[in-house]
């Protein structure tokens, strides 16, 4: 077997292990030279992305293929049927999230080359950055519940230390403290639910649990606690308090990778609901008259209600903000609401017997919107960081007339603005159109509220564009120059991908999103790859 086949065979372990090795080597490399350390970090991230692309090519070549990797042995299940080893299981949904994480990681590392150049303590910065990347990939690729919890804690501890990186400002340390309190309580709730499930079924493996689970009373408690814990990490109202502070006061490259970590917790919620609890979700709870109230209907309605509140609060709080980055953070909260809306609408119909394809279309829109939202909001945060780097101002009252000095940054902000509010020809239009169509068939009011809030987001960002970039030239911004080339390169990569997805959405949906939807709605493939024959 040649080297490429070996790389693909061991790739799930290598994707997590190589950033970990890089993170442990960075303090030793940085004692030699500073520039060598930067080049070393970028090389490690590019090598990891190459392995992710190889694995994606291997999985997409054959429909429904799942790649299983067992740590420290060759068989995951002994003869008695006990699952004893930790395993990584990569199917269509995992590789979709891994592609998103790869793009964010590459852009973040290239951006922080020149954004963080005048700060001290940079060797610790790069070590923690590589640890966040390793933890994010571990969360996405794993097939074991306790392993998911461990990687979740690694990511949250490393990102808390990076949020409080500018220790000369009191507000950044305060944001970090709020983040670690809420994140730690959420993770302890998740551990509590994992312990309940382990105590009942003696299994920590996701596939074995999905096979054995019967929906008893303790399982319902475990589901409620699990979703509460994961919603705390993903920033859904009413547990969104940490999001504007943490996103707004961290350095911009850290915010970019935090967006990736938040989407990974949302992926965790999807995996738990659809794969581990999948078979038992269509149980009948109650019968009123001759209408069955299924469990998935109840859960779907609850999630849709939460989503509407999230979208409302996100958009309304963004209207009154004066700080540039906090406003984009509230827009990010509203976008998470759109994703949850699509998933809740899908839950109400996808498991019942009278499904007409609405549920699958809603899932497609929701998953596509995860990809689009990560790119759009990421680009907006990078532009905000560029403005802070050039002018050292964050308040919108004191900015103005920057379009003459910073031409490229203005163009990138225009692209991000059109993409976030769902205008053609950007990628936000394609995914939001699918969400509007599918939620209209569930209930027309949901679709009307979603369209209204999208228009309000457009109003918010046009106000920002006018007050920050257009307008008369101010005299104290005379010597403001364009930002350095590496920051422009990072913003350019994301902008090109946004325009590409916006012009050819069919290519992306058929090749990348459809395998993810296939993997999520049918969990028998996932189980039979580990246990072998149901």
């Amino acid at each position, binding site marked *: 077997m040649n080297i490429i086949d070996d790389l693909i065979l061991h790739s799930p372990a290598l994707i997590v292990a190589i950033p970990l090795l890089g993170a442990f080597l960075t303090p030793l490399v940085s004692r030699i030279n500073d520039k060598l350390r930067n080049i070393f970090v970028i090389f490690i991230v590019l090598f990891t992305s190459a392995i992710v692309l190889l694995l994606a090519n291997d999985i997409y070549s054959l429909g429904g293929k799942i790649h299983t990797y067992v740590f420290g042995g060759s068989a995951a299940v002994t003869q008695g049927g006990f699952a004893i080893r930790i395993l990584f299981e990569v199917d269509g949904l995992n590789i979709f999230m891994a592609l998103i994480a790869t793009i964010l990681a590459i852009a973040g590392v290239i951006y922080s080359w020149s954004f963080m150049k005048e700060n001290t303590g940079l060797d610790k910065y790069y070590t923690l950055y590589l640890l966040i990347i390793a933890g994010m990939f571990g969360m996405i690729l794993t097939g074991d519940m306790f392993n998911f919890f461990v990687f979740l*804690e690694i990511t949250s*501890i490393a990102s808390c230390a990076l949020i409080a990186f500018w220790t000369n400002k009191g507000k950044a*340390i305060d944001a970090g*403290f709020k983040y670690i*309190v809420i994140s730690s*309580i959420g993770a*302890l709730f998740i551990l509590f639910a994992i312990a309940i499930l382990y105590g009942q079924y003696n299994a*920590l493996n996701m596939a074995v649990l999905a096979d054995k689970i019967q929906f008893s009373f303790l399982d319902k408690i475990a589901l409620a606690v699990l979703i509460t814990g994961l919603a705390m990490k993903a920033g859904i109202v009413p547990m969104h308090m940490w999001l504007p502070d943490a996103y707004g006061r961290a350095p911009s490259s850290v915010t970019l990778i935090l967006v990736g970590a938040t989407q990974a917790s949302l992926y965790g919620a999807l995996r738990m609901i659809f794969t581990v609890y999948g078979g038992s979700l269509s149980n009948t709870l109650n019968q009123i008259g001759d209408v069955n109230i299924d469990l998935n209907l109840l859960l779907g309605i609850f999630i849709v209600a939460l989503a509407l509140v999230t979208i409302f609060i996100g958009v309304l709080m963004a209207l009154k903000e004066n700080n540039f980055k906090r406003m984009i953070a509230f827009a990010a909260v509203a976008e998470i609401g759109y994703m949850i809306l699509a998933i809740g609408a899908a839950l109400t119909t996808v498991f019942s017997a009278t499904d007409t394809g609405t549920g699958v279309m809603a899932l497609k829109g929701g998953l596509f919107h995860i990809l689009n939202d990560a790119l759009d909001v990421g680009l907006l945060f990078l532009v905000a960081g560029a403005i802070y780097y050039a002018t050292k101002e964050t308040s919108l009252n004191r900015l103005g007339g920057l379009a003459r000095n910073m031409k490229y940054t203005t163009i990138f902000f225009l692209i991000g603005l059109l993409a976030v509010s769902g205008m053609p020809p950007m990628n936000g239009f394609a995914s939001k159109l699918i969400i509007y169509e599918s939620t209209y068939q569930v209930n027309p009011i949901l679709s009307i509220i979603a369209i209204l809030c999208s228009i309000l987001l457009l109003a918010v960002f046009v106000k920002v564009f006018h007050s920050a970039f257009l307008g008369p030239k101010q005299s104290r911004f005379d010597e403001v120059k364009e930002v350095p080339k590496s920051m422009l390169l990072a913003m350019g990569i994301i902008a090109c991908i946004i325009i590409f997805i916006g012009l050819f959405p069919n290519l992306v949906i058929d090749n990348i999103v459809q395998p993810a939807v296939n993997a999520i709605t049918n969990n028998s493939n996932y189980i039979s790859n580990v246990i072998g024959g149901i």
Partner: protein
Amino acid sequence: MIYNIPYIAVVALILIGLYAVIFKRNLIKIVIGITLIESGVNLFLITLAFREDSIAPIYRGSGSRIMDMSLPVPHALTLTSIVIGVAVLALMLSLIIHLYKHYNTLDASKIGREEE
């Protein structure tokens, strides 16, 4: 009934910890509340390993009674959780040292409210 007492203690610890995090304003008391919740979850994990009349899971060659050992997997899970708790506690206390140097107070309603 006597085998249910650890579970009652777990629920009591978690509820007291949540009360301390939500309603107290001193930063150190919030950290103590998080430690209480973590102790409760660790106690829950280690209680799951109990079997009646069991011995410690240490292998002694051919003379050890395997069928009487308590389950060793929850021991490993609890240990990992304790390690993570130590790391989070160290991080939170370092942040409190920085906050005290900056604001000279430990009251959670007075920090982070300055103008831009």
